[in-house]
């Protein structure tokens, strides 16, 4: 039996002030089960990335509730949120965002060290080996290709064994072949670990590889493949 890991209730958020304000999330309801791979698609400015930020505990809701692993994120303070994020949420960015003056091994170890994991560097080494970079441990980001940097970023996101993996356009800065390899790696790791993954992308093919697709438009969920399937099943 599947278990709900993320629950968004009447999530409402406006960014900016006065004339520049934008109502980004409009009373959004969303429920995601453990182990799901959810592709979030939609046009630019539709609220996809903001939804990810809310789910990562980086943006606070104006109204509504967000629960991850039964923890009410909307009630947590800044430092408690940071701690929760470090232990439960891994993030992969479009531009990798590795720390330039740290080696691949040190980059992967950072979230573990912040979570006070004792054998942080051993785990980091295993994670890098898992993404095929066992020979690149002491390389700095500047000495790695784009694809390799994204592999390090994936290893860093997965190192603390997060319950939720958030990926924001993970192949957006990569060529087609490298992008495919990275996508393969992401889905393989997600499947192997049973991690819940939320993936924002403009690439329909990549979104199609997810078990569930959500289309966002103007701060609202325009289409949810799970609901669509459920209603089709009901009609059948």
């Amino acid at each position, binding site marked *: 039996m599947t278990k709900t890991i993320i629950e968004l209730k009447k999530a409402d958020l406006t960014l900016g002030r006065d004339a520049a304000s934008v109502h980004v999330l409009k009373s959004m309801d969303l429920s995601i089960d453990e182990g799901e791979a959810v592709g979030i698609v939609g046009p630019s400015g539709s609220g996809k990335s903001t939804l990810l930020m809310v789910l*990562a505990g*980086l*943006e606070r809701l104006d109204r509504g509730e967000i629960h991850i692993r039964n923890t009410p994120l909307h009630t947590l303070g800044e*430092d408690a949120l940071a701690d929760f994020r*470090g232990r439960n949420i891994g993030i992969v960015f479009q531009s990798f965002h*590795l*720390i330039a003056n*740290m080696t691949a091994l040190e980059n992967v170890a950072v979230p573990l060290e*912040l979570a*006070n994991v004792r054998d942080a560097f051993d785990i980091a080494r295993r994670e890098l080996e898992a993404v095929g970079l066992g020979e690149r441990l002491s390389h700095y980001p500047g000495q790695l290709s784009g694809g390799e940097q994204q592999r390090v970023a994936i290893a860093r996101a997965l190192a603390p064994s997060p319950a939720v993996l958030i990926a924001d356009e993970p192949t957006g800065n990569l060529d087609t072949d490298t992008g495919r390899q990275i996508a393969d790696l992401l889905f393989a790791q997600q499947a192997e670990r049973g991690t819940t993954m939320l993936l924002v992308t403009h690439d329909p093919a990549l979104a199609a590889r997810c078990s569930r697709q959500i289309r966002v438009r103007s701060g609202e969920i325009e289409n949810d493949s799970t609901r669509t399937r459920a209603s089709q099943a009901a009609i059948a």
Partner: protein
Amino acid sequence: MSAAGSRPPLAFRLAMRELRGGLGGVSIFLACLAPGTGAIAAVNSVSRSITDAISTQGQSLLSGDARFELRNREATPEEFAYLQSLGKVSRSTGLRSMARLPDGSDQALVEVKAVDDAYPLYGTFEADPNQPLPTLLAAKDGTYGAVVAPLLLERLNLKVGGDLLLGNARLRITGTITTEPDAVSEGFGFAPRLLTSRDALIASGLITTGSLVEQSYKIRMADPATGLRNLGDRANAAFPQAGWSIRSSDRAAPQLADNVTRFSQFLTLVGLAALIVGGVGVANAVRAFLDSKRTTIATFKCLGAPAFVVVLIYLIQIAVIALAGIAVGLVLGAIAPMIASRFMAEFLPISTAPRLYPGALTLAALFGLRTTRACEIPPLGHAREVPATALFREQGFEARRLPGWPYLLAAGLLMAALAALAIVTAYDRFIAIVFVVSIAGAFVVLRVVAAALSWLARRSPRVRSPALRLAIGNIHRPGALTSSVVLSLGLGLALLVTLTLIDGNMRRELMGRMSEQAPNFFFVDIQGPELEGFRKIVLDIDPKGKLIEAPMLRGRIVAFNGEDVTKMKVPAAGQWVLRGDRGIT
């Protein structure tokens, strides 16, 4: 193990890892800190090396454990007997006179010092050629030996072996003075030194009634610690009418020590002003440094770093960079006394051993650290507010706002601590308070000027030239450097103007008044019987010249408004008036 317990070392590790990329981009930071810190360290180290030398080499600088000085008279037999009861006595006589070439072709003012065979009781008198002083001063065929400052040889175009006339005595220059151990304690001379024997001075005929001479009696005691205890009180009790000036080796050169301390305080404030001007640069450099780290800061936050860990990471990094800048300044300050001693040797006959002055270096480091801390806190407050969400949006960071109140409060407290340090360590606290208030006032005025400039730029009419439009826009746009530039330039210029005005005022005070009121020549020590002859000489030289005469005698101030001056509390700046004889006209 709790996460909180492990955080400081983790923040330190992360800070050090991140610094691995080097200190690129922080050279401005170092350049802002090192000179100000170095100036304060150097000024105080040199000052302390001099005052330490004065206090530790007191016996040598005074050429005795104690010195009794009498103006225009010798000690009476009773007084001399009393002095001899204190220890071994060396007598010397000092006066200012003209030394003439035997053919009368040239002459020069000299500071004459006539010593006995016991001189010096402490320290070493060195001459070139390096022979014993009695040998150099010995008389031969009616000509007395004399050693002189090299400057006198230059002025009279003489060489060692040449002859001079001092009054009625003929002197042969037997060498030049290399080291005169007690020169500092006798004050700065107006003319080159001429050292000869007491016999030569007596033969010169310059010591007559009314001659302006200083009679010094230096004493070497068997047990200085006991002998110096209450020496002044005992001597004055034994001879209340003696009017002697008594100085002991623990304060061999009080005026010099006070002047050095006073001057070093002034230079410390100048150094502090440089540091504060540099502090604006530090704030800008820290801001630029943290701006370049915003993506990394946001990444740390996304990876689960609490805000205070992020602040700690960059606090440590900035501290490391600041310590590097301060260390450079301290090295400069530490070697300053060694460099200065080479130049000072020409003016001050004190040997300053090459050593560190921890107090001076600590003071400079404290000034450097507090300036850095006060200037880095607001940018760190901004760093704390860096939104991690910017990594998702792949867009720039929002315009900077004021940091949170705890950071503003901390910056304010650190500024207050810096001001307090400047005031507490100052020689003259009133001047330090004026300095601090002036700096604060300058800050406020310059901020207002910067705000007014931005306001004017924002409301200026739209111009057609794109270059001018961009330039005006850059004055008021969010994140503009208007405030920093106005502050840096304004404070720097204020410092330069202040120094220039002080210099100009002092010059005007000296030169301006002299040109209006000062006579062309000033003659002293003209005895009554010589007066008529002197008037005739002056009239012969310049019949239209104006000669103003004033009778003069020497005396001591013993009471002021009927009150005994020995019982009055006289400010340090005015104590010289009561020290020994004064010329009274």
